[in-house]
């Protein structure tokens, strides 16, 4: 067959569509391998990307739902603890920081796929916050109300008492930055970021966990990393 010799010197090759198709196929297939490979690349870089101006530091993205980001004024800020409690509380920033301190290093997972490893948090364990407020027996869950309206989310008391759940006011050795929820955010590393409510200004004890902001939009209430929201690992 003469066809064997089609690609002789005079016959143009269709490289253009080859480049196009290979790129599209490579890109689409990266939906399967992309995150794993990127994880290796970024750990090989060893945080060097943090020195590139503008690139998201350590892989953080800033997600918000309201038209403006809450501002923090230490002079007027208060954390309320209410609902089914014997002793409702209103803590100012100083009183919050006077509570027993806890620190931890944990990984932060966003449901959209990005992950930040080795985040240093410092803050207050839920049990230390509740020790003063004294939940009533009917209280089985906590509602975390954000200053970013209308963002709320819930944890059961059991979830909130996990060993690495805290209300954090420091991140990586600095006061919590505004875009990360200053001055106080919930941290629950076993669940996706949308449960880690930012700009927490009120904690209410409630009979049972309700639907938070993203749950009302179809996300799972129990947002366990790797086994909720359509993921299984």
């Amino acid at each position: 067959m003469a066809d064997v010799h089609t690609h002789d010197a005079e016959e143009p090759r269709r490289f253009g569509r080859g480049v196009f198709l290979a790129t599209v196929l490579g890109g689409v297939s990266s939906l399967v391998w992309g995150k794993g490979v990127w994880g290796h690349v970024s750990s090989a870089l060893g945080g060097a990307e943090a020195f590139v101006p503008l690139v998201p530091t350590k892989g953080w993205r800033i997600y918000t739902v309201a038209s403006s980001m809450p501002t923090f004024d230490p002079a007027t800020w208060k954390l309320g603890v209410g609902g089914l409690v014997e002793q409702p509380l209103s803590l100012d920033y100083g009183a919050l920081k006077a509570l027993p301190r806890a620190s931890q290093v944990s990984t932060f997972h966003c449901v959209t796929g990005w992950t930040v490893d080795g985040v240093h948090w410092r803050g207050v364990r839920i049990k230390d916050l509740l020790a003063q407020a004294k939940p009533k027996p009917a209280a089985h869950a906590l509602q975390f109300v954000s200053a970013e309206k209308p963002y709320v989310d819930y944890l059961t008391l059991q979830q909130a008492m996990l060993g690495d759940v805290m209300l954090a006011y420091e991140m990586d050795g600095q006061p919590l930055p505004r875009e990360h929820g200053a001055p106080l955010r919930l941290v629950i590393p076993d669940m996706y970021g949308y449960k880690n409510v930012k700009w927490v200004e009120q904690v209410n004890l409630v009979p049972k966990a309700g639907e938070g902001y993203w749950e009302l939009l179809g996300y799972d209430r129990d947002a366990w990393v790797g086994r909720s929201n359509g993921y299984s690992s």
Partner: protein
Amino acid sequence: MRAAPGYVRRFSRTERTLHWVNAAGFFVLLASGLVLYLPALSAQVGRRPLVKDIHFWAGIGWICALVLVALLGDRGGLLRTAKELDRFDREDVAWLRLRRPAPQGRFNAGQKVNASLTAAFFVLFAVSGLLLWLGERDTRFRFASTVVLHDGLLYASLALLVGHLYLAVIHPATRHALRGMVVGTVREDWASEHHPRWSPPAE
């Protein structure tokens, strides 16, 4: 419109419209996308739901506009250009291997590769962007790597854009090509020096 004496027509009106609609869409999406992506900008601009809507609908608008230009414009001409961009002959391969001289046609091999990559990135941006949008609404469309693909495309297309802008605006030997993409025509002597195997159709 006839080319002025000493000039030859390199790009048709449809090709130029397609190019500039593509460029405009890219820059609107780049600006709104960076606000969504970069923490410093996200914090400064705020209004994320609005910026997200702008980004999404600009993306839909971009796709529709390109399809419209292709459908309403000179389809036959676009198809011929696509064929030209697809085909790499011996000189093109030599050009890519940096073997000179490798006299080029209307497009040099680098421009052909750029066109293929730009088209592929366009498709991948659209697919991953739609998956991000759908994934927020339905877990069946949610993949852990979608955001990695969309962000990776940003870096890849920025690299391509920087090279493209350098050659089109700064590099002395090639920047005359910009005239071709703005008014359609280029100098005959420039064409015969850089694209000697291109024989522009007589007007």
